């Protein structure tokens, strides 16, 4: 296998290197980062025959244009984009072979917000603390801890033998910019009016323009707290719905800090976080309360969907 690269001609709005995330150092404040839609990230890896841990490129709303300086296999999953390779349309959710010098160009996003470019052998930027995931605020991982820029050469490996081509049914993307996300209560739901969580069920919250990979600010009816003040800062995880004093909730996403002092009324379940990752500012979220058991059952179903493709039959 010889070295190759993805030469970035146009970087798009926000294209970053992501892998599963940088776990193991939250005790010293190192955020996890990783994909906003972990399902589609893993599916992209499956389709090109990688381990689930390999790094992909996460593309946001406006995709990149790049020249592939390698003979390899690529798959694009997640948000549905119009993508051409040397002018010919390429399918979403299926792997395809590319030759050195071919040009991959993202066009309009049709549905969803974030796509993942999986490449055989994975993106090979240097790992930092065991992970290649880019965390923008702490400038860690990826290329110099930042979003890709025109002129970057993202290291990959050229494959001697082409990998088998595969296709899969991807995530069912939110339609009409609306999505239902299941939520389990707590741990500080007792800081809110007893009916607050029930009251949010079926009510739409709008994803504010002041949202990013760290979190989504949500505009909607204020969640009325029965207690003022803040908590003593405590560890937090992805999917937490924290509520600052003004009552406008924030859904914590991939680049969240490791700890926070706002009370959390609930958490979006792991099975639905990939859907949350497909939202853009202006989209709407409806929360639905569920139990822990529902959450685990839903996650097992998601995992089965992925495992089905892990040993999927070749299509050609």
């Amino acid at each position, binding site marked *: 296998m010889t070295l190759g690269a993805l030469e970035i001609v146009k970087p798009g709005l926000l294209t970053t290197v992501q892998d599963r995330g940088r776990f193991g150092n939250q005790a010293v404040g190192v955020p996890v980062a990783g994909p906003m839609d972990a399902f589609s990230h893993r599916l992209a890896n499956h389709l090109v025959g990688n381990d689930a841990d390999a790094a992909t490129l996460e593309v946001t709303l406006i995709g990149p244009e790049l020249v592939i300086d390698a003979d390899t296999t690529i798959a694009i999953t997640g948000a549905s984009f119009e993508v051409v390779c040397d002018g010919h349309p390429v399918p979403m959710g299926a792997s395809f072979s590319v030759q050195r010098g071919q040009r991959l160009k993202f066009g309009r996003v049709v549905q969803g917000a974030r796509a993942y470019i999986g490449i055989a052998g994975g993106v090979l930027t240097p790992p930092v603390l065991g992970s290649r995931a880019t965390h923008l605020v702490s400038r860690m991982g990826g290329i110099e801890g930042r979003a890709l820029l025109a002129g970057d050469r993202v290291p990959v490996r050229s494959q001697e033998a082409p990998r088998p081509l595969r296709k899969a049914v991807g995530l069912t993307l939110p339609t009409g910019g609306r999505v239902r996300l299941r939520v389990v209560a707590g741990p500080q739901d007792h800081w809110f009016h007893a009916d607050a969580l029930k009251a949010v069920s079926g009510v739409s919250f709008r994803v504010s323009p002041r949202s990013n990979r760290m979190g989504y600010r949500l505009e909607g009816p204020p969640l009325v707290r029965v207690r003022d003040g803040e908590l*003593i800062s*405590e560890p937090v995880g992805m999917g937490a719905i924290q509520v600052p004093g003004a009552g406008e909730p924030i859904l914590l996403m991939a680049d969240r800090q490791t700890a926070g002092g706002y009370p959390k009324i609930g958490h979006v379940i792991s099975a639905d976080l990939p859907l949350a990752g497909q939202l853009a500012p202006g989209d709407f979220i409806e929360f639905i309360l569920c139990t822990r058991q529902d959450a685990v059952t839903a996650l*097992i179903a998601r995992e089965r969907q992925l495992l089905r493709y892990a040993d999927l039959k070749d299509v050609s």
Partner: protein
Amino acid sequence: MRIRECGDSMLLVEFESVIDPLVNARAIALASRLREQAAHGVRDVAPGYSTVGVHFDPLQTDLGALVIAIQEAADSVDQPDTAAASVPIEIPVTYGGDGGPDLEAVAVGAGCSPAEVIERHAARIYRVYMLGFVPGFAYMGKVDASIATPRHRVPRERVPAGSVGIAGGQTGVYPVVSPGGWQLIGRTSTAMFDANRARPSLLAPGDLVRFVPVPGHTP
């Protein structure tokens, strides 16, 4: 002690909800114990002031067994050794000037001279209660009550790396350039975080810290 579920992939162990060295030492000791045990499915363990976050993969973890393991580990760290970290880590600071734009304001609030603020800030040995915000950012306490100053209402968009600040009774150092609302009283040239070092974060939970004034211009 109480264990709360935070969604389907994290448990939060809560001790008494206070900022107290002994409670904090228990949280840190429990986190260390759980990290050593490395139970199947556990992805990360992080202590807070009086809490421990246990992040796990719900598909790889027997939740009931994890809860029991946490309870047993918590019992065994009931009397943590607070004397373990006895040698303070020294951080040289150039107070005031460009690196400490809020020194004067803190002095006004304290009703003393800037020199006295420096003296009071450097006189204490601080405890690192927890890290968060960005890699290597340590929340330390407590500062002398007279120089405790609330955060800026509107945070600065750009706080330089190495800035030493006060927020209420806490003090800390910004490891990288970032937005921030703390009252900036000085700056250090010490690298708080470097991923390429054997120990990337200069400070860990439970460490003791002393700030040493160095004369001259801001580094």
